[in-house]
């Protein structure tokens, strides 16, 4: 059995960690937090693009490095640790994966090289209203080559050049009414409105579409199936980001608890706090192991992916949400000040656990996929 990353992948992880430690310190993260005109860290984005991270899992023929999904998992964990304020997840886990898996040869040639080089940014839009997206609440329409409608929230929408959008191609409002389309967000009729997210380092906007030119991606009527598959793939990568963030939350709680004295001793020597941190550790280890299993399923195109991805996602959301909130608790009063970094993780943990579907939705996915697997 070899249920671990390879030495090369670990080397990549060490390099990525060191790089982000230098180039993506908390000050850099805060430049995006504090300035609502900035949607991502452009300098960091061009540096990680230059190193090829954006093209990690994109084949060489389309301008990528042609490495595998395991390498992308390794990078995801490091981006999560450093709270990197970039559109990496939208552009790479979602847009690039959609094109890579479902695009025509022409579409791959057209979009992937610019995405791999970081020159262009893509994202994905499904949600239009509050609550869980489902076929019947997608009102955006496609007819005669044009999109009309509204999407919100669209992650990284303001920085994005391209968008994959789910829209109705008939009026029936069922699963097979929906198709995916690629939209150039610089086209006429695209109207973006800024939204304030709970983590401004991961921004979103709403977008109105009025007669906007669009091209079909993949098969007509297959939007829901394609989306489920790509969200499963992305869920594994998200879970690595979440595990990374959770681990740093624990590390920082631990560090503070050993520096801070109360009642004449280190607060980290009190069992109430030690047990809290032990619980963080347990959740993180479970999440890490579930994420590894997701990585295995993702990298081998296993039919376990739907179950493995949902398991990884549920476990990682639980771990990061818990670690981030208890990190504030262990810091006490300073933990809820703007100056201390605890809130950066608190914000990011909740945002990540909502971004590609809520935890409760992923729990539902997990059980329904287990039921399907049982029938098979």
């Amino acid at each position, binding site marked *: *059995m*070899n*249920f*671990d*990353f390879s030495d090369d992948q670990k080397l990549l992880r060490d390099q990525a960690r060191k790089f982000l430690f230098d180039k993506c310190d908390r000050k850099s993260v805060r430049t995006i937090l504090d300035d609502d005109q900035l949607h991502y860290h452009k300098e960091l984005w061009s540096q990680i693009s230059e190193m090829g991270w954006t093209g990690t899992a994109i084949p060489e023929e389309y301008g990528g490095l042609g490495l595998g999904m*395991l390498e992308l998992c390794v990078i995801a964990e490091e981006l999560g640790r450093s709270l990197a304020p970039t559109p990496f997840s939208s552009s790479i886990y979602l847009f690039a994966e959609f094109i890579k898996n479902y695009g025509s040869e022409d579409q791959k040639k057209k979009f992937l090289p610019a995405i791999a080089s970081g020159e262009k940014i893509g994202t994905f839009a499904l949600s239009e209203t509050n609550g869980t997206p489902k076929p019947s609440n997608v009102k955006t329409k496609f007819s005669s080559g044009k999109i009309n409608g509204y999407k919100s929230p669209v992650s990284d929408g303001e920085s994005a050049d391209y968008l994959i959008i789910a829209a109705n191609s008939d009026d029936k409002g069922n699963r097979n009414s929906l198709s995916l389309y690629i939209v150039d967000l610089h086209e006429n009729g695209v109207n973006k409105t800024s939204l304030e997210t709970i983590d401004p380092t991961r921004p979103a906007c709403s977008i109105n579409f009025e007669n906007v030119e669009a091209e079909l991606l993949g098969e007509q009527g297959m939007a829901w199936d394609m989306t489920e598959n790509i969200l499963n793939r992305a869920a594994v990568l998200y879970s690595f980001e979440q595990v990374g963030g959770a681990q740093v939350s*624990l590390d920082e709680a*631990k560090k503070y*608890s*050993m520096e801070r004295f109360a009642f004449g*001793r*280190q607060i*980290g*020597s009190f*069992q109430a706090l*030690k*047990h809290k*941190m*032990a*619980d963080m*550790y*347990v959740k993180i*280890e*479970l*999440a890490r*192991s*579930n994420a*590894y*299993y997701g*990585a*295995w399923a993702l*990298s*081998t195109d296993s039919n376990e992916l739907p179950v493995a991805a*949902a*398991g990884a996602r*549920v*476990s990682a959301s*639980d771990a990061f949400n818990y670690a981030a909130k208890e990190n504030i608790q262990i810091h006490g009063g300073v933990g809820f000040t703007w100056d201390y970094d605890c809130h950066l993780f608190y914000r990011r943990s909740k945002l990540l656990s909502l971004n590609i579907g809520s935890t*409760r939705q*992923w*729990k*539902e996915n*997990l*059980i*329904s996929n*287990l*039921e399907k697997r049982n029938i098979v």
Partner: protein
Amino acid sequence: MDFNDSQQEAAFRKEARDFLEANAEKRSIISDKPNDKNPQIAVAGAPETVKGGKEAAQEALERAKVWQKKKAEAGFAAILWPKEFGGYGGSPIQQVIYSQEEHDYLVPSGYFEIGIGMLGPTMMVWGKDEDKKRYLPKMITGEEIWCQLFSEPSAGSDLAGIKMKAEKDGNEWVLNGQKVWTSGAHFADYGMIVARSDPSALKHKGLTYFYLDMKTPGIEVRPIKQISGTSNFNEVFFNDVRIPDSQRLGGEGEGWKVALTTLMNERLAVGDPPGLDFDQIFEATKELEVEDGLAIKNSEVRQKMADWYVQSRGLQYTKFRSITALSKGQTPGPELSISKLVTASKMQDVSAYALELMDSSGMVHHDQNPVLKNLFQNGYFFSAAMRIAGGTDEVLRNIIAERVLGLPQDERADKKVPFNELPSGKN
């Protein structure tokens, strides 16, 4: 990443599988439902003493000894032990592989593990050559069974708080006091014991370690009835029990050091007994009806099931990570420390929730219970014990916090004071 054995591992696995196939019966697919052969959830530790009466217990013991002898002859009884004491001279990964394979078969368990896993290795480190020759081979074959006499009424989580008196009388020691939670004392032939030889020394300094014959006059074993109704443990009373000084392991006052050898040799917790887990409640939810139909179709139920699924599989994959480390010849990380902590509480939550789903029939505790018989009713009681036995949840969290995370130790009131001056409450 893959789940394949190396060539050597595959060869060993085949050897183990061939042996098991030829000599044992495979578990049924729903192995965890109680049935005639497997009447209760397997209990980590000794088989129960009372249920089915003394005769049934004696028969089970004989069956276990027959099985152990076969296993020993095939070389699988003590894979990690050196060949000179009758072991296989194998590696940890081989132990893991064998345990994984054996897990699929209905074989007796709970009789020999403490001896082979913990007490034998202690004797290898601290015993005299003639003792090793005399006792170790029979430990493997199951001809002689050993128990571990450590815990006392006032020495549980605080194990070094032992009060059992050991007083020297010429070439002999006289033991007086009480041990408790002793698994298998009622069928063990020998035991290893820690006792206080110098109450005026510091707590960890005044202890001495011995082995003894359980038939020595003055030893009385009484089973403890647990809330589950079964008895898996005993109280053992010592009344002027005289043993020769030659049965001392380690020096006078070195008992804590020897005890640590025992405790560090806890068996690899990979071949877990079948428990009560996600799979069992998943099955139950497909049979039980709640107000809006089958339980598994209810969204609250589904949300809870997902939580237990990720805990259950998270632990399983954590073991895969440890096995990977073993397979590469590395020491596994501290991952395994989380296993019992998660498993015990999960079992308690799963059981309690399953009873909720049964509604008022969840109250009924007998074999006619329509859903999976007594599984969840038993689990409800057994899990409460599991959160305490072998290290309480709280002790395990301390271990994770201090040894894994490196957090500071608690301030201790008992470090610098002679044992007999320590406050000890009503005891």
